[in-house]
């Protein structure tokens, strides 16, 4: 991509191929995400958005290509990455409090069999305050709404104090007011020079939330500054023109051009 001049991008992926039982899920993914950007990963169901995130986190093995984080191996930079998994990935009946979950964000900095102490608890409280859940810290996690659970995961990632955040659908099941609050928070994080990569599937809001967009459908259909990529042609290519919502957006974009 021409617009990326930075020499050591926050995340660089080269010729990545990922397959599940010999079926390719992602192929030829080749991107470089500069530091300090907020990237929306957009694409239809089954496009491999979550797989991409999981591959970068080292949770899914890749058969070809490489991933570099701040110019280095995942192993060396894993502590610089914060991860927000999908909300459905855990059992919310698990006997832990909101505080316990947020404290998990600090576990990476602790050695084997060291317990989180006051320093970690302060960090976790601060993160909870940022997402507006400080009053809920002692509550069992199943007694929260979907949006609150999502914010618990966000707070846990904040407690990680990372430079690169990977978020898998942080807006799923979140009400409109919370979504606005989360977006504001993400922008604040970006403004501190951190990099965010967010899987998002609401096309209507993707354009206003993100500086950069990665259009994904098993391969990279388009990647770059939002204004360069978010156009009817590339969206049509990504979604194959299947969604009615898509044509509405395409119409809107076409009208704006006129």
């Amino acid at each position, binding site marked *: 991509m021409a617009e990326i001049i930075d020499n050591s991008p926050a995340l660089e992926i080269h010729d990545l191929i990922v397959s599940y039982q010999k079926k390719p899920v992602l192929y030829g993914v080749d991107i470089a995400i500069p530091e300090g950007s907020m990237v929306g990963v957009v694409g239809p169901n089954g496009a491999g958005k979550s797989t991409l995130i999981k591959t970068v986190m080292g949770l899914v093995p890749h058969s070809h290509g490489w991933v570099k984080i701040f110019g280095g191996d995942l192993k060396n930079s*894993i502590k610089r990455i914060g991860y927000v*998994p999908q909300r459905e990935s855990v059992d919310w009946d698990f006997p832990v*409090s909101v505080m316990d979950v947020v404290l*998990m964000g600090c576990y*990476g900095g602790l050695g084997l069999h060291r317990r989180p102490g006051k320093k970690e608890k302060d960090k976790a409280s601060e993160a909870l305050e940022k997402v507006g859940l400080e009053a809920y810290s002692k509550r069992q996690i199943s007694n929260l709404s979907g949006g609150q659970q999502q914010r618990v995961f966000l707070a846990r990632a904040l407690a990680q104090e990372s430079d690169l955040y990977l978020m898998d659908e942080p807006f799923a099941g979140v009400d409109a007011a919370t979504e606005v609050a989360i977006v504001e928070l993400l922008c604040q994080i970006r403004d501190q020079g951190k990099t965010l990569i967010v899987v998002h599937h609401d096309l209507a809001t993707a354009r206003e939330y993100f500086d950069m967009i990665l259009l994904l459908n098993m391969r990279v259909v388009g990647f770059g500054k939002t204004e360069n990529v978010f156009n009817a042609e590339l969206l049509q290519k990504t979604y194959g023109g299947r969604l009615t919502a898509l044509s509405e957006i395409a119409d809107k974009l076409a009208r704006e051009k006129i």
Partner: protein
Amino acid sequence: MSFNQIFVEPWVSHFSAYWPILVMAFFVTAACGLIGNYLVLRKISLVGDAISHSVLPGIAIAYMIAGSRSDLAMFIGALIAGIFTTLIIELIHSRSKIKKDAAIGITFTTMFAVGVILVSLYGADTDLDLDCVLFGKLDFMASKEKVFFGLPQIVLTMGFILILIILLIVLFYKELLISSFDPSFAATLGIKPRLVHYCLMCSLSVVVVSAFSSVGAILVIAMLILPAATVYLLTDRLWLMMILSILHAFLSSIIGLHLTVALKVSTAPACVVAGMFLFILSWIISPRYGLLRYLSSSFDLSTFQKEN
């Protein structure tokens, strides 16, 4: 039978006979219960089932190799069999489209079948007895030679294993917690969930192998799952689950012992029945998840009240 005979005499006139049985029952249920908490939370309760059954071929083969009934050989044999079983389950589950429950089902029954064949082929000249394998011999505890505080060696070994399990849980509380709750997130922090899983399976094998000879292959499953299931209904905090499951172990062994005296039956099943009684009790009266909650009020307003 009078109250006196059931509740007083075991403590007064037959103390030396019942004391080792009670202590052994408590050590076994407590150790099993602690590990069982993690099995229930990770939704792999049946793996305990699998390991307890696969112990049989392990000790049979260990006997054939060692040529004697040495405790150490049996222990190692059973441990290897237990770990082998978890590996086979993982292998079938991850390398085919068979789901985990079916993988567990076929693995442990086959292991047990192999064990039964081995015992019936070579069992005549060993002391391996299928009754003992299935039901344990907790009640023979009293006839063993006493070494310490009126307790035989095997009870002391079990006590040592209980302490070991408590130590491991205290030391690796954080690793066990995060890898049970969110294994992917744990992996991104550099805590290896697979390693934690195999360590947990090893500890499970150790506990099951040592509990096996006293409560048998089937009742040990109850000891693993009942305490965890009971306390899971009572609290929302993992550390409190741990403490309450030890309390559950303590109560079920005491109630079980009195049941044994009253009905003149064997102790291990009596403890399981007592444990089940405690489970039903907590199911009914649990403050947050109990059945009584449905009767007392039709709406749970606590969530709303807490918000203000």
